C-alpha cells in the first residue's frame, strides 16, 4: 500500500468549532501553525472539536533535545477564536521556533481594549521575544530558535512600542513575501506573501486588521499549491487585496487552490451595504475570487456545521456565503465541522497535487496511508501529514444531533418551486370566523 503514501507537504484544517486552527506542513521537520483554537471544555455550541495542542505534541517532529518542535506560529489577529489555548501551547513542551505577529497587539494593549487571556499571553510572549531579539542584536547575534519574532504590518503608533526598535529585517509589510522560517531559508518549499494588514486599517476593527497571507508550498518536483489565508477580513479589505494585486501585475499572488473562507465562512466577504446602506451582494469580489481560482479549487469553512437555514443576526458560518462560494467551485465547500460527517469530524487534509495544486485527501485514503505507515519503515516521507490527518478527534461535550440536511440540487429547487406555487397547500390548522 505504498501508493497510499501522502506527499510530504500539505495543509491541515482542524475541526475546532467556529474558529481557525491551520497547520502547514512544509516537510518532515518544518511545521507551521496559523492561529489556534484548542478547547478543553465542551464547545458552547456542542461541536465536536479537536484538542489541537495534544495532537501536535504527539505528532510534531522533535528537536535534538527531544522536544516537539513547531517552527512557526502565526497569529492573524487576537480574537479568541484564533488564539484560544495559546497559553496552553506555551505551557506545553512544544518549542515554538518563531512567531509572526501584527502591531495591532500593542495598540490594543495600549488602548486597553478587551483582550482575552490567551491574547495577553501571546502579546507577552511576543514582547519577550522582541526583547530577546533586541538583546541578541545588541550582542551581534541572531536570536535563537524559540526567541525569534517577526512583526508584520505597520501601525502609526509604532514609535510608542518596543518592537519599533527591531531592525528592519524583522519587519515585513504588505506586498512582500517571506521565505525564512526560524532562521532557515525555505524559499524552495515555502513562500508567504503578505497582503494585509493595510496601514490605513491599523486603527480599524480588529477583524479588519487581520493578517492576510497567500501561502505557496512547493515540492522538489516543482508542484505548487496555493492557499489564501485571509483571517477574518471582510469585503472592503479583500476587494482591496484583489484590486491591488491585479493592478500591480501580481495576479499570481491572489491565485488559490485552497481558500480558507474568511471569518469562518462569513457572508461579510461578499455582502455589504450599497450606496443607500442596503445590504447587497458584491459580485465583483466573487468574480475576482472566481477569476483567480485554480482548476479544482477548494473552499474550506473552518466552522461548526452549517445550519439548515440562517436567521438574521446569526454568526458565521453563513449559508449565503457557502452558496456564493459554490458558484465559484465545482467542488463541495469543505466544512471542518462536518468533514466527513457531523458526528465524527476529521482533520481536513490537503496534500500537494500535480493536477490541482492541493488535493483533498479523503478520510479513507488517510486511514490506508496510516496502515501503510505502520507496515513499512519508510515512515519518514509521509508520516507527518498522515499522522496529523489521523489524529483522534475528541468528543468534547455532546455531539450535536444530526442537523436535518435540506434537499440539495435539482430536487431542492423543484421542491422549493412546488412549495412556492402553493397549489398543493392546505390549511394546516382550523381557522375560525365569526362576528365576535
Amino acid at each position, binding site marked *: 500500500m505504498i501508493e497510499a503514501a501522502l506527499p510530504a507537504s500539505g495543509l491541515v484544517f482542524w475541526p475546532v468549532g467556529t474558529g481557525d486552527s491551520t497547520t502547514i506542513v512544509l516537510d518532515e521537520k518544518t511545521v507551521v501553525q496559523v492561529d489556534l483554537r484548542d478547547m478543553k471544555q465542551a464547545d458552547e455550541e456542542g461541536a465536536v472539536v479537536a484538542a489541537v495542542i495534544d495532537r501536535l505534541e504527539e505528532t510534531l517532529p522533535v528537536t535534538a533535545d527531544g522536544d516537539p518542535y513547531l517552527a512557526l506560529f502565526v497569529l492573524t489577529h487576537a480574537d479568541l477564536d484564533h488564539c484560544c489555548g495559546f497559553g496552553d501551547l506555551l505551557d506545553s513542551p512544544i518549542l515554538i521556533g518563531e512567531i509572526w505577529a501584527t502591531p495591532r497587539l500593542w495598540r490594543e494593549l495600549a488602548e486597553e481594549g478587551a483582550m482575552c487571556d490567551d491574547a495577553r499571553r501571546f502579546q507577552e510572549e511576543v514582547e519577550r521575544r522582541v526583547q530577546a531579539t533586541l538583546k541578541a542584536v545588541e550582542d551581534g547575534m541572531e536570536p535563537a530558535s524559540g526567541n525569534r519574532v517577526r512583526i508584520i504590518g505597520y501601525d502609526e503608533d509604532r514609535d510608542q512600542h518596543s518592537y519599533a526598535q527591531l531592525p528592519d529585517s524583522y519587519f515585513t509589510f504588505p506586498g512582500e513575501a517571506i521565505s525564512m522560517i526560524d532562521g532557515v531559508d525555505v524559499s524552495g518549499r515555502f513562500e508567504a506573501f503578505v497582503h494585509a494588514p493595510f496601514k490605513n486599517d491599523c486603527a480599524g476593527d480588529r477583524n479588519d486588521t487581520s493578517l492576510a497571507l497567500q501561502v505557496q508550498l512547493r515540492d522538489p518536483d516543482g508542484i505548487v499549491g496555493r492557499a489564501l489565508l485571509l483571517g477574518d477580513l471582510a469585503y472592503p479589505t479583500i476587494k482591496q487585496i484583489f484590486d491591488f494585486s491585479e493592478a500591480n501585475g501580481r495576479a499570481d499572488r491572489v491565485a488559490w487552490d485552497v481558500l480558507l473562507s474568511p471569518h469562518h465562512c462569513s457572508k461579510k466577504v461578499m455582502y455589504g451595504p450599497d450606496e443607500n446602506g*442596503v445590504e447587497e451582494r458584491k459580485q465583483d469580489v466573487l468574480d475576482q475570487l472566481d477569476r483567480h481560482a485554480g482548476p479544482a479549487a477548494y473552499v474550506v469553512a473552518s466552522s461548526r456545521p452549517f445550519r439548515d437555514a440562517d436567521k438574521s443576526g446569526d454568526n458565521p458560518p453563513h449559508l449565503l456565503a457557502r*452558496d456564493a462560494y459554490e*458558484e465559484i467551485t465545482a467542488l463541495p465547500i469543505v466544512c471542518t465541522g462536518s468533514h466527513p460527517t457531523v458526528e465524527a469530524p476529521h482533520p481536513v487534509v490537503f496534500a500537494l497535487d500535480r493536477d490541482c495544486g492541493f488535493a483533498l485527501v479523503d478520510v479513507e485514503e488517510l486511514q490506508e496511508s496510516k496502515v501503510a505507515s505502520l507496515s513499512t519503515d519508510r515512515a519518514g516521507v509521509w508520516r507527518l501529514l498522515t499522522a496529523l490527518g489521523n489524529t483522534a478527534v475528541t468528543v468534547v461535550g455532546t455531539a450535536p444531533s444530526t442537523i436535518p440536511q435540506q434537499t440539495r440540487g435539482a430536487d431542492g429547487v423543484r421542491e422549493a418551486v412546488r412549495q412556492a406555487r402553493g397549489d398543493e397547500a392546505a390549511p394546516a390548522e382550523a381557522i375560525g370566523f365569526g362576528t365576535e
Partner: protein
Amino acid sequence: MSTPSGHRTAGHELALAQLRRIEAVSGALRVAAVREPSAEHETLAVDISVDCAGMQTVPLGLQLRRRELITLSIPGQFPFFVPAVTTRHRRFAGFPHVQWGNQLCLYRSVATEWYPADGMFGLITRLVDWLQAGARGELDTPGEPLHPPVAYQRADADLLVIRADAPQPCDGVPWLGVALARQVAAGRADVVGWLEFAAAWPTNQAEARAAAGIDDEDAELFVAPTVITTRPLPFEYPRTARDLVTALDEGDQLSARVVLALIGFASRTNRDLLPASKPTSGGPDSDEEPDTGSDGSKAPLVMLVGAPGRGIAGSAEMAPHLAGWSMPGFAATMGRLTLHQFSSRDELADLGREVLEMGKDWLDGASIRWARINEARPQTTVRRDTQTPAMWLAGQHVLVLGAGALGAPAAEMCIRAGAAHVTVADKGLVHPGILVRQPYDDADIGSPKADVLAARLRRIHPDAGADSLVGDIANTVLDARAPLYDLVIDATADRVVRSLLEQRRAGERHAWPPVITLMIGHRATNGIAALSPRGASGAGMDILRRLALAAHTDTTGTMSDIAEDFFPATARTALFQPEPGCSDATFTGSAFDVTGLVGQLLTGMLHALQRPASEQTMTALVARMPTFTIAAAPQTGPQWLSWPNDIVIDDHTAGYQIRISLNAMNEMRTEARRGARLRGPRVETGGTLLGAIDDAARVIWIDEATGPPPDSLLSELHFQHGTAGVSAHLTARRKATSHRSGFLGMWHTHPHGPASPSPTDEAGMASLVLPVHDGPPRALILIAAGPAPTWQDWLNGVGTPHWYARLVERQLTPSPQAPHESPRSPETLRHLQQLTWWPGGYAAHPLSPPTPTHPAQTRRTP
C-alpha cells in the same frame, strides 16, 4: 439589492415576487442581485443562484458548479413575454441550445411550452431540467430531433429554401460541389439539386433544369458553391470568414485556396447559366451588394456550408446542417481569377497566384453575412401532418369532381397533404355569391372555377401537378379516366353524377380506385361521406342508399336527424335558391360549416383508407357540426356505419347488376336450412324478395328475402309461392324504409339442382303471376341452386350457391301458353301426384292427405 427605480412594471413585480417565494422556501434558489430597468421598456435583470449540487455530470456534459449564477432578463410584459436566460460566464458556449455563447435556449417552442400562469415557477423548473440534462450531456436526448446549429443572420438577409436532400460526405472526405438553385423571386432561391465537383456541370438552363428534374421552362437556375464537411462546426457558426476557413481547414483540410477555387468554378458556370444582361466591371471595386449578381452573371453568389448537425441525437447518420454565406460580388470575380493559377501559361498562373493571395487577405478580414435558410428537405424536416390520416394522400393522384363548397376545400386539402397530382372537374364559373364559402377571390368572378382552383393549387405547391377539367362532370365520369387516379372524390352532391358513377363503376369495380362521396345537409349542420374501396360492390349511390335504409330503420333514434336531413320521407319543397333565376338549389351554410364538415369527413375517409385493403369495406361516416341545441340533436358525435360487400350477379339479358345483400342471402340460407331439416333435403323453398331497381344506374338491390308465406306449397319438384301476409309485410317494409325498399320479385331454391330455370320456371316467368295486387310491371326471379356439395356447403355457411337471376317483364295479357295449359306428360302428372307437399310458414308437418290440386293450376293469372 438596489431599490426600485420607478421603471418597474407589474410584470417585473410579479416575476420578482414569484422568485422571492421560491427563495423563501429554502436556499435552493437565491436571488443574488436585482438590477433595475434603467429606463422604461427595459428589462429587470435578476441574478439567481441555483443549487446544482449533486447533479450527475458526464465528461462531455455541462461542467456545472455547485451552484450556478444565472441572469434572468425579465421583460416588462412578463409573463406574456418570456425572460431571457443567460450566464455571466461563457463556460457553456458551444453546447447545444446555448446561443451567443451564454444565452440558454430553454424553450423550443415558447407558444406551446411556456405557461404564463406558471410564470417563474415554470421557468425555474425548466431551467433546472435544462441544467440537469446538460450536465448529463442529454440536452439533445437520443431519439429527439437535434436543435440545429446557429448561424446568426440579419433580418434582411437573402432567403434560401432547401428543397433537395443534401449530399453526405462519405469515407471521411468532405463533399465539394455546387447546389442547383432556382431563382424564385428577388432575394429568394430554392435549392433543388446538387452536383458533385466531379460531375458534369450544366452549361445552359436546359441542362440545369434537366439536372434538377424541373419541367418548368421559365425556371431560372444557377449554381451555388458548396462544401459539406465531415466534422461539426461549432454550435454557433463562425461570424468571420477567417474563423470559418480555419474551421474548414482544421476539420477537413479545406484551405482558402480550395474555397476560392470552388467559388471560381461556380462563378464561371453562372456566367453561362445566367449571363448578365449587360457587362459588369467586376473587380474588387464593383458592386458590394451580393444579391444583385456579379462577375458577368446575374446570379447571386451564395456559398453553402454544410456540416453534420441535423438529425436525431444519438444516431450515427447526421444529415448536414446548411448555412448560406451571401458573398459580395467581387468574390465571384476573385474566385474566377484565382483559377488562372492552374494555367499552363506562366504569366496567367502568376496572376492567379497573385489573386489567390488577395483572396486570402480578403477572407482574413471579411465578416460573414449568413443568408436565411428555410428547410424544406425531407432529410431534415418532419411534416406537420405526420402520422395523420392525411398522410395517405402523399404522392397520390386525386380526381376531385366538383370545385364548389365541398370540392374546392377538399382539393386544397389534398394538395397540402402532399398529393402528387390533383385534377379538379367542374363546369361552373365563379359567381359573387359563392365567395361566402368557397375559396375564390373577387378577381376570379366570371372565370371557370376549375381553372381558378387548379391555379391556386399550383401556387400552394408548385412541385405538385394540378389541372382542371372544365365542363360537364358527367362527361368526365364517362370518359373512363377515373380508373387512372388513385382516389376519386365526388364532391358534386349531384344525383346524376352519383348515378352515372355507380353505373360506370359497376362493371369495372376492381379497376376503379376508392371513391369518396361527400354530401352536406340542407343547412350544413350535418355531413355524410361514403367510402367505396377498390372492388367494393357499390359506390356512393349504393352506400348512401344503405345509409338511408339504416337511418330510417334505426329504432334507437340516433340517426333520425340524418334521416330527416338527407333522406326525408317527403321531398323538401322549400328549396334554397341563392340567386334569382334558374340557379342551382343549394344548401345554406357558412364557410365555417362547410370547411369544418369537409375536414371531418375527409379525415374520417382517409382514416378508413389507411386500413389494409383486405379490411376495407363500404363505409359511411356521419359528421355533425356543433350548432344544434342538445335537445334537437340526440346524437352529436360522428357515427360510422359499414357494410360487407353484396353478392354481385349480372342479369345479362336485361343488363342489370344484381346486388344481393348479405342480409338477404342469410335469410334465404336460413330458410333453406330450416327446410332441409324439416321437409327433406331436396324440397324446394322460396319467398319474396324486397329491394329496389335503379334503371339509370342499372342496379337491382336485394335488401331482404322472406320465407315462404303460409299458404305456399313446397315439394321436391315445385315451389308454389303463396300470398298470405305478403301484402301486409310489403306495406310495412315500404313504410319503414320510406319507400326505398319494396317488392322486387321472388326467390326459390333448386337444392342439388342446376341454377337455371326449369321448364316450369320458364313457363311461370313467361306469364308471371304476381302474388300482390298493384305489383310493378316487372319482377326479379332468383334461383339459388347448386350441386350437392356446393349446396351443402352453403347451407353450412360456406361460400355461396349458384345463382340464376332474371328481371322479368310483366305480361299485360295472359300468355297463350299459360302454365295450366302447358302440356305435361302422364308420367310427370303421376309423379306430381306422388310427391309429398308441404305448406309454407312455420308448419312442421306435410299436407295430409297428399292429394294436391295440380300445382300449376293454383297459379293465378294476372
